């Protein structure tokens, strides 16, 4: 395959650009920023699209090479493939899948749409393989450290086998293994499939247990049923026993039954007797009403009797008392009142006289008081003593010449003299005169008072008399009124009595003139019977209770039945019944225990149907996971075999081919080259024993080696029709000698294919022209 021409309508910074390419080796020279790399990228993109943004790229290739003026990128590439001429026209849109790509057979003019990565179809290799084989950009900077070198080797290794820059066999296998071991680990002990399988087993065990529990549950339910039946059977027996006991009891109760019957009959008889002609039953209520009526009448009658007795007493009392008539009493009363009035006059006069005497006495008392305050001019006694004292003092002085003693005596005399003027006695003579007068007046007063007392006494007597007369008068009048009132009341009571009696008779529908007493007798008799009835009923109540609620007919039946003798051992029957009760109680307890076990023991047992459903789900999951695991295992196995096979087919060939090219590029400097699985290369120089790894070689040598390797890979993987090789400034690290050798080699290498070297080094062009290699300047 070879590229004849490229036409860039717009791509990156290039617009409307045409580049004709020829067979064989050619140099395309352009200064920096002339667009060499853009052209290389265009070639690749035309065949493979721009791809997605990769890790580490800030912008995608599509964005990077979008025309600067905003027009859509587009172009054509003319090429020869399988001896036919084609061109691919591509309009770059949003993504590879939306690009409009057509391929035209130039000979026929037939165009058709083609996939975005048409290169894969045409070249048989992926874009990755393309990039790492025949599309050789600048070698990555190879640093001295082993790590970078290994990476490069790895990249080459990857490219050779996978066509993807960053994918290695190891990575692919790891992906598969990761997926496998997540399901079932290497040890087979963990993983989601293993867990599911364990859960499946767990569920199966649970189902087994559940079914066993169901069996146990069935047994318990059966046992409950059996116990129920036993209880029923015991109940039946108890019922029969109770009946026998009941009959036995009836025999015991026969006396009571007979009494019951008798009383019932008696009760009927009394009830009949208590039934009046109009059908009313003279029951307690009815009779009580009679009693109530009688009681009322009796009360009234009593009151009438009391009233009559009282009246009699009054009248009798009135006749017995020897009293004056009210008129006579009134006359006496008036006279007494007259006398009283006179006495009051007299008393008043006397009183005035007393008052006058009192005034006189008061005056006399005042005078006496004045006289009492009058005192003598001096106290004669004290005065005399005082004078004597002075004399003595003088005597002492002159006689004895005792100054001190005489002074003392003189002082004392002085004191007494002063006191005689202070302590003066009262003047009593006038006072005594007045006192005598007073006494006389007082005696007079006393006499008057006594007279007044006498009058008062007389007055009191008269008042009492008057009061007594008043009382007698009132009494007489009262008595008369009393008798009148009493007589009126009696009349009222008698009317009330008659009225009440008529009422009672009307109520009971009896003639009004019915004799109360005889009626009383009749009702008393009925009451007696009613009381009897009540007693009978009470007794019947007790009997009824004792007999367990029974009717008259039943009682007669029972008596009749009991009358046919039956040989029942009541005690034995009672014991048997007790035994049955105990047995029933035990059975009930047993049933309760079983029911408790039913409730508690099987509470958390899952339902077998639910378990089966869950088991089915898990079975499917395990099956699906196992299938996936098995398929992934096969994939891993086949992948490993693929690797071996690929290596087998590539390994030796690759080394040979690489050596050929390497020799050509280095001018035979190396005799041997080895390429490992990971594309570690080692070379043996001519005439130097032993290979050494290329990471220890110079940059130039490494470049040569990897160029050789890439060319070898490219050759090997492109099949029958060699692909054009695009080198983007790949010889930049070569020295002059190597460069010259390389050019020569490449010229011969590309004789039957096509090789384009893009460069910005003019020296390359000069050298190429010397070798008659075509140079295109852009």
């Amino acid at each position, binding site marked *: 395959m070879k590229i004849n021409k490229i036409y860039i309508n717009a791509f990156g910074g290039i617009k409307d650009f045409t580049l004709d390419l020829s067979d064989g080796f050619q140099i395309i020279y352009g200064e920096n920023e002339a667009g060499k790399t853009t052209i290389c990228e265009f070639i690749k993109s035309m065949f493979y699209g721009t791809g997605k943004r990769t890790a580490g790229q800030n912008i995608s290739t599509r964005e990077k090479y979008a025309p600067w003026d905003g027009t859509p990128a587009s172009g054509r590439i003319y090429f020869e493939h399988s001896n036919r001429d084609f061109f691919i026209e591509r309009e770059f849109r949003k993504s590879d899948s939306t690009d409009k790509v057509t391929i035209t057979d130039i000979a026929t003019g037939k165009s058709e749409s083609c996939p975005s990565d048409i290169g894969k179809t045409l070249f048989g290799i992926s874009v990755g393989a393309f990039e790492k084989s025949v599309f050789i950009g600048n070698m990555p900077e190879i640093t001295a450290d082993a790590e970078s070198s290994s990476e490069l080797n790895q990249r080459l290794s990857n490219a050779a*086998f996978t066509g993807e820059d960053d994918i290695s066999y190891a990575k*692919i*296998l790891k992906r598969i293994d990761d997926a496998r071991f997540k399901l079932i680990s290497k040890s087979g002990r963990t993983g989601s499939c293993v867990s599911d399988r364990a859960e499946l087993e767990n569920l199966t065990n649970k189902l087994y247990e559940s079914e066993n529990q169901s069996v146990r549950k069935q047994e318990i*339910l059966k046992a409950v049923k059996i116990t129920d039946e036993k209880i029923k059977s015991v109940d039946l027996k108890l019922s029969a026993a109770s009946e026998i006991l009941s009959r036995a009891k009836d025999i015991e109760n026969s006396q009571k039954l007979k009494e019951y019957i008798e009383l019932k009959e008696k009760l009927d008889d009394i009830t009949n007797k208590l039934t009046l002609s109009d059908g009313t039953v003279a029951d307690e209520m009815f009779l009580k009403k009679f009693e109530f009526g009688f009681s009322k009448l009796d009360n009234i009658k009593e009151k009438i009797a009391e009233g009559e007795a009282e009246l009699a007493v009054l009248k009798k009392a009135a006749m017995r008392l020897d009293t004056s008539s009210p008129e006579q009493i009134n006359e006496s009363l008036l006279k007494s009142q007259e006398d009283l009035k006179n006495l009051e006059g007299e008393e008043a006069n006397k009183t005035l006289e007393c008052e006058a005497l009192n005034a006189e006495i008061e005056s006399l008392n005042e005078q006496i008081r004045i006289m009492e305050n009058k005192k003598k001019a001096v106290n004669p006694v004290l005065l005399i003593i005082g004078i004597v004292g002075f004399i003595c003092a003088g005597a002492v002085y002159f006689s004895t010449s005792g100054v001190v003693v005489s002074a003392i005596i003189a002082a004392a005399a002085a004191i007494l003299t002063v006191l005689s003027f202070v302590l003066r006695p009262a003047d009593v003579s006038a006072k005594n005169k007045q006192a005598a007068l007073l006494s006389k007046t007082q005696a007079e007063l006393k006499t008057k008072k006594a007279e007044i007392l006498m009058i008062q006494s007389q007055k009191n007597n008269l008042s009492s008399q008057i009061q007594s007369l008043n009382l007698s008068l009132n009494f007489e009048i009262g008595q008369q009124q009393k008798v009148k009132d009493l007589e009126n009341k009696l009349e009222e009571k008698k009317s009330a009595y008659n009225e009440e009696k008529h009422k009672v008779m009307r109520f009971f529908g009896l003639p009004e003139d019915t004799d109360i007493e005889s009626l009383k007798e009749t009702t008393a008799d009925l009451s007696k019977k009613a009381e009897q009835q009540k007693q009978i009923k009470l007794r019947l109540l007790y009997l009824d209770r004792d007999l367990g609620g029974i009717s008259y007919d039943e009682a007669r039946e029972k008596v009749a039945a009991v009358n046919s003798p039956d040989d029942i051992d009541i005690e034995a029957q009672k014991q048997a019944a007790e035994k049955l009760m105990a047995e029933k109680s035990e059975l009930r307890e047993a049933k309760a225990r079983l029911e408790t076990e*039913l409730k508690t023991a099987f509470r958390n047992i899952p339902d077998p149907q639910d378990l089966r459903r869950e088991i089915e*789900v898990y079975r499917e999951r395990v099956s699906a996971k196992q299938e996936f695991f098995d398929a992934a295992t096969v994939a891993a196995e086949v992948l490993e075999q693929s690797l071996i096979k690929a290596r087998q087919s590539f390994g030796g060939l690759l080394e040979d081919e690489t050596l050929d090219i390497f020799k050509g590029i280095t001018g035979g400097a190396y005799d041997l080259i080895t390429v490992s699985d990971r594309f570690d290369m080692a070379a043996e120089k001519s005439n130097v024993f032993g290979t050494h790894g290329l990471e220890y070689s110079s940059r130039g040598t490494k470049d040569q080696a990897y160029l050789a390797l890439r060319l070898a890979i490219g050759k090997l993987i*492109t099949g029958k029709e060699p692909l054009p090789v695009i080198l983007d400034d790949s010889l930049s690290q070569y020295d002059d000698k190597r460069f010259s050798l390389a050019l020569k080699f490449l010229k011969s290498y590309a004789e039957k294919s096509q090789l384009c070297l893009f460069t910005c080094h003019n020296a390359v062009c000069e050298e190429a022209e010397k070798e008659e290699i075509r140079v295109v300047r852009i």
Partner: protein
Amino acid sequence: METVKILHCADLHIGAAQTMLGEKGQTRRFEALITFENILSLAKENSVRLILIAGDLFCSNSVERSAVNRVVECISAIPEIQVVFSAGNHDPYNSSSPFFNIKLPDNFHILPDTDSEIYFENLGTRVYGRSFSDTYMSGEARFALEANEQSINIMCQHGEIKSDLSSNYNSITNEFIENSNMDYIALGHIHKRTEPARRKNTYFAYSGCAEGSGFDELGDKGVYIGNVGKGVCELEFFKTSLRTHESVEIDVSNCEDNPAAAEKIIGELKEKYGDGFADNLYKIILTGDIPDGRFFDLGEITSRLAQTLYFVKVKDNTEVMHDLEILKAEKSLKGVFVSLMLERIAENPDNKLLKEALKIGLKAFSSEVGYNEDQ
């Protein structure tokens, strides 16, 4: 009465744990209770006279007491409708039953574990049947009671229709149906609804479960409502399920990436299932031919879908468009791999495992591979 209007339902499994749904399983447990409430409302709206619950009302006899109380409460609230319950293998009627020894409303009748009948004089209808007394119950060759010719005879039974009586789930045979003299047999136990069928004079049907509980129970679930009588069976299906389980294939050939695939899925579901589409539980199967190099991340797609859908799991059944002949010719490890795999496949063309291995291997060349746990 010539016909009686009934509502036939079964297999609600109120309280059933739905562990496959993860966190959602807890809330989903009692949605069946809400469905039950809706069923009773539906009965009332449609003037139903008799409700037949053919078993498995509860997931087990250990169901929460609050759920039992609520069921009883709801039935009490419709005293004008008679409700007959024939217990199933999940909620057998024995001393451990939640209905045992509690006060039940007058309109709620439970068939005992022996052949019984309940007569509704005002409906001119007799309901026959027997409840499960335990997890397993063997079928009986014949029903112990004779159907009354004067009344409408309905059987309410949880069990399987089998050719013999070997099943542990109260099986009945076709012969039994033919000779039962029943006008209608309301069946439960099978979660998939059947159309009313007829054998001689007897109509019978499974109402199916009223609320699905797994991806083996796809589509709408509900009850039957309608008139039944002598030679009459006019039952109509009413959907009652709050959510349905759906398995949907979506062709993602034209989807460039995971968001586009998710968007397409949402779009198609919305179109197919209408406004309530987000409430359902989906198993999405991606199909289609996708170009080499494009792979869908099921985890991402599932996460995106889960923002809208109540529950979803995604399976990848897409086929990558590899031109195997071209690949085979590639001078690369991939080419060799494809070549070797094709050789093996050629030797065993029916071996699906080899085809799967090829798919896995090819995927591994360009992206991570892995088994999607959600599928």
